[in-house]
């Protein structure tokens, strides 16, 4: 009974998060427009970079689609941070905190909303990428790791945004959240493989948890799907989610104590 109530609450918070996509017109641009634009712009502008000897694919859209999905998932999590910022500013969060709702449900509801946003983006992205010639040597099963990538990065981004919003409780925190998440996004193998990167970026990208997740999400588009790529991706997703989950729980406890 308690579990069912918790799941229902998570669903309602997630639905409220998703409803904001249509209620706030600007959100349609960030949720659907930005990832598609990222894909079109990067694969168009840097198309010829894939002709450099040894590049894993000779088609930039194939290389860029998983990265655009990851960036889209980052924007999805940022959307949840914006929601929470609004809730804190207009007092809705205070009202939520005095209800008997479990704190975990409040967090999981927003995370589920972030995942929902990311999956909407992914559909929009694939609707552009597949007709544009996205290759899937592994067949349609290539989409499964991509869904995991999208949902996993949205979870990271959502948790990171919530943690910082709960801890800093101001609109200024949004700038910090955006900066941190975009840095994680660009200091990875999103634009080029590790061996083509200059030393300093290669060193950073190697320890960036997004790098194995991107490799896992890309595998079905570059060749076959293997545990050698999937294992490190899942490990990174679980480990970072656990750390960010603890940080978010700590943030919400600190917000509750301050109210």
């Amino acid at each position, binding site marked *: 009974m308690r579990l069912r109530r918790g799941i229902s609450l998570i669903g309602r918070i997630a639905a409220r998060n998703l409803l904001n996509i249509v209620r706030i017109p*600007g959100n349609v*641009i960030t949720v659907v427009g930005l990832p598609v*634009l990222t894909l*079109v*712009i*990067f694969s*168009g*502008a*840097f*198309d*010829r*970079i894939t*002709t*450099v000897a040894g590049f894993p694919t000779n088609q930039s859209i194939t290389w860029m689609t998983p990265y655009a999905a990851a960036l889209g998932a980052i924007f999805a999590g940022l959307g949840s941070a914006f929601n929470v910022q609004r809730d804190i500013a207009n007092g809705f969060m205070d009202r939520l905190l005095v209800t008997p709702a479990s704190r975990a449900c409040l967090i999981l509801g927003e995370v589920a909303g972030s995942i929902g946003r990311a999956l909407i983006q992914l559909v929009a992205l694939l609707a552009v990428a597949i007709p544009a010639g996205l290759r899937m040597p592994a067949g349609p099963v290539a989409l499964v790791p991509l869904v995991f990538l999208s949902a996993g990065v949205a979870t990271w981004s959502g948790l990171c945004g919530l943690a910082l919003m709960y801890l800093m409780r101001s609109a200024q925190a949004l700038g910090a959240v955006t900066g941190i998440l975009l*840095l994680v996004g*660009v*200091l990875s193998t999103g*634009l*080029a493989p590790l061996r*083509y*990167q*200059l030393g*300093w*970026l*290669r060193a950073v990208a190697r320890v960036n948890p997004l790098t194995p997740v991107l490799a896992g999400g890309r595998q079905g588009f570059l060749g076959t799907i293997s545990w050698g790529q999937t294992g490190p991706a899942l490990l990174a997703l679980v480990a970072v989610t656990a750390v960010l989950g603890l940080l978010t729980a700590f943030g919400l406890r600190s917000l509750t104590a301050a109210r």
Partner: protein
Amino acid sequence: MTLRMSTTGRMSTTGRMSTTGPTSTTGAMVRRSLVALVRQPAAWLPGVALPLVIAAVFTANYHSAAALAGFPARLSYLRYLLPAVVMIGSLYAGIAAGSFVTDDLASGFQRRLLLTPVPRALIVAGPLVAAAVQALAQGGLFLVVFRLAGGGWPADVPLLLAGAALLAVAVAGLAIAVGLRTGDNEVMQSTFGVLLIAMFASSAFFPATLMHGWFAAVATRSPLTWLADGIRDARPVPALITPLALAAVTLSLTALALRRGDAR
């Protein structure tokens, strides 16, 4: 610095601003914008940091592009990127000017200015000059950083700086027009994203000759391609005429917004 108005319509800053002399009025408006810029690092710091981060990340990823057939000879990718980095700084300087005017509109200061005998054109003169000055200062800093990073000097330094300043004025004109029209800082700031995307669809980051299909067609016809290539190849006509023409268009939009009374 805050401008205060007396009931007689006179404004005073640290001293007094006479409404009779357009030169002193312009000076006061420009001074106010520059002081506000210097006092608010949030207004200029991203304009310095973002282009340098983009340069570092793109060079680290795409340095091998310089080996591609068709890439401009004798240019490293870092050197190729210099005009793009300066142009992003100019975009940011222009948006900062738009933000300044939009904030004035939101706080009601713009409305009080319109009640004074100050000519409307002078109301936006301050932010426009501040945008040009910011672009020049950023451009100088980027030149030094690129030189230290091994990017060398561009073919024509004064041309690069002049192009940067004119582009900043053009972008400021657009940003101010959008700010006056919408009165919404968030909407106004979204023009930065639109312009940044437009830069990707040009030869700013990658030669248009190495793109293909519709993207190459768009990039070849983009005014930002003419500007970036003009600066890169030290050709004064495209490097100066392009931003001048853009400025003429966007400043007309600003004038229209002022005349329509959007600032009220």
